């Protein structure tokens, strides 16, 4: 067993040095090449004083350089902090300050946006550019290292002390109070999932893994880490293709990718918009999905198109990575949603009532998870961490409160029934409606705002805002969307905004979300 996540890459580089590690269209890196590139990146970071326990943000489109950089950050002993490449600069700046990053890996065409976002108050010591600008752009006087300059570094892995409890990566997720939360994972929690997944799905160096999930989304840890452990090739979707289901599906089939892992929204769009039925899926060996409930009608279509493949439903919030799984052994006959299955990765699941007592089989309760895949906590937010990471009499280590309502079925699997709060999924992304509402009400013309999730067959939910303006104020839908897009990622900007004179109230005076939800769902 490896002690650090980075060991899985070094071990594969020693075992299968000439096999492909990362492939993007005509560009590729072998395992020896990825090992060397990430070692050079690590040495460059160390030369700028970055090391064990530090954080380094990544804000660049998917590329071979982005993959080499994230491994390099960890080899330097630091944690990588992937930020949505499409996120507005203001969000990047917020995250960079929140976890006080020491370095930032980006692209030269983003320098102007950085200058503006940080306004001379960047927490970083240096910048790295995942491209080779003719002249390295400078941001607020920070040293800037273009990719080609890394060639001067030694390709040997630097000897950096570290242990399994060191930070490996931070993933920022939507926060209900209006600020994102930085979920901290360690080498230990990452390895618990990496090894379980590589073993369970019997990955080998013959496999070619699709990588659809962005690096700031935890599905990518399977592609990157379990893939590296097996010595398999990972094929990140080129940014140019990402928004086109037909183009992505076609390229995966043409490259004969053997392992697909994506959200149900992505796979559904392959079916409804990607012309999947006309493609050759015979190379698919394992097909995994996670992040939201897969409509059974589409799952059935997919299983019929790839009857030879093994299908599995993986479940787990970012805070626990994958903590349960369900092996879909036959095409489901009923339309009821698939179970989320049984505990994975050495984790244990507890279904508890309000007084934290276990409920009987068949009774609904909240899911608590304990075990090796748990996050260390939210970065710099002890109180928030303490709200969800608790010591229970029933468990040895800390237990994470998921907020998911579940029940044990007769067959010993868990069934997901819903949320106890206002967290929703859209296209597999997790969104706290409260974060969007906070942003909307921060606009000077807005008095009240409620965001509702309107169920959608293809992408799980579409976001709609209902807004009440302050007396005498005016603002248009486009301006409010723009206001949201200044700090929120695109997938959190409401698709439509309805203006009303007032919001419906319950008898206790609270906003009647159910009424808003119903009127939005029926289109009334």
């Amino acid at each position, binding site marked *: 067993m490896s002690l650090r996540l980075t060991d899985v890459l070094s071990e594969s580089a020693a075992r299968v040095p000439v096999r492909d590690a990362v492939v993007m269209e005509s560009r590729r890196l072998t395992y020896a090449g990825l090992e060397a590139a990430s070692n050079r990146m690590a040495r460059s970071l160390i030369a700028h004083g970055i090391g064990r326990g530090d954080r380094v943000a990544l804000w660049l*489109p998917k590329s071979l350089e982005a993959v080499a950089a994230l491994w390099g950050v960890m080899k330097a002993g630091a944690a990588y902090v992937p930020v949505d490449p*499409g996120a507005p600069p203001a969000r990047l700046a917020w995250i960079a300050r929140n976890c006080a990053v020491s370095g930032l890996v980006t692209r030269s065409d983003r320098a102007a946006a950085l200058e503006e976002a940080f306004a001379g108050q960047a927490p970083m010591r240096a910048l790295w550019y995942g491209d080779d600008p003719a002249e390295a752009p400078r941001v607020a006087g920070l040293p800037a290292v273009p990719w080609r300059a890394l060639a001067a570094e030694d390709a040997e892995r630097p000897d950096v002390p570290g242990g399994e409890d060191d930070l490996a990566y931070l993933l920022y997720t939507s926060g209900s109070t209006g600020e994102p939360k930085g979920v901290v994972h360690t080498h230990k929690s990452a390895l618990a999932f990496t090894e379980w997944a590589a073993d369970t799905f019997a990955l080998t160096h013959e496999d070619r893994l699709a990588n659809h999930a962005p690096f700031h989304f935890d599905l990518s840890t399977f592609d990157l880490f379990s893939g590296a452990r097996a010595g398999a090739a990972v094929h990140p979707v080129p940014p*140019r293709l990402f928004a086109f*289901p037909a*183009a992505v599906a076609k390229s995966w089939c043409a490259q004969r990718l053997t392992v697909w892992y994506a959200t149900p929204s992505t796979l559904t769009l392959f079916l409804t918009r990607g012309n999947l039925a006309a493609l050759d899926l015979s190379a698919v060996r394992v097909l995994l999905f996670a992040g939201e409930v897969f409509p059974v009608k589409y799952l059935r279509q997919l299983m019929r198109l790839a009857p030879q493949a093994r299908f599995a439903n993986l479940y787990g919030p970012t805070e626990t990575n994958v903590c349960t799984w369900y092996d879909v052994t036959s095409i489901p006959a009923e339309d009821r949603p698939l179970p989320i299955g049984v505990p994975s990765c050495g984790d244990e699941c507890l279904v508890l009532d309000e007084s934290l007592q276990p409920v009987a089989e068949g009774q609904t309760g909240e899911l608590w998870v304990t075990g090796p895949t748990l996050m260390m906590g939210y970065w710099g937010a002890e109180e928030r961490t303490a709200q969800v990471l608790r010591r229970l009499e029933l468990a040895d280590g800390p237990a994470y409160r998921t907020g998911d309502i579940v029940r044990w079925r007769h067959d010993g699997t868990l069934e997901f029934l819903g949320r106890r709060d206002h967290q929703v999924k859209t*296209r597999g992304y997790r969104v706290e409606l409260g974060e969007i509402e906070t942003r909307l009400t921060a606009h000077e013309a807005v008095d009240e705002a409620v965001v509702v999730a309107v169920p959608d067959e293809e992408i799980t939910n579409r976001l709609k805002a209902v807004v009440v303006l302050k007396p005498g104020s005016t603002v248009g839908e486009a301006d409010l969307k*723009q206001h949201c897009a200044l700090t929120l990622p*695109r997938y959190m900007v409401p698709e439509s905004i309805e203006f009303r004179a007032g919001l419906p109230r319950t008898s206790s005076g609270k906003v009647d979300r159910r009424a808003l939800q119903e009127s939005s769902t029926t289109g009334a």
Partner: protein
Amino acid sequence: MTSTEAAIHEFLTKDVFYDQDLSGLKPGDSLLERGLLDSLAILKTVTFCEEQFGVTIPDVEVLPDNFESIQAIAALVEKQRGK
């Protein structure tokens, strides 16, 4: 700019790139390089073109080359008009 291009430009400004200044965007400029055309934006653009211009855009035509620029989208609309 043709009238088709102008209508697409207006739609993108209002409904897709609402947080960008598109005043200087020429019909031939790349939209994909801006990295903001996500899958939902593409679906909305397809729906807009179908409703606005009365054409059908089959899924197999929804590819990067056909959405590279306003010019490319307009060319796709014209091509589908003949069908």
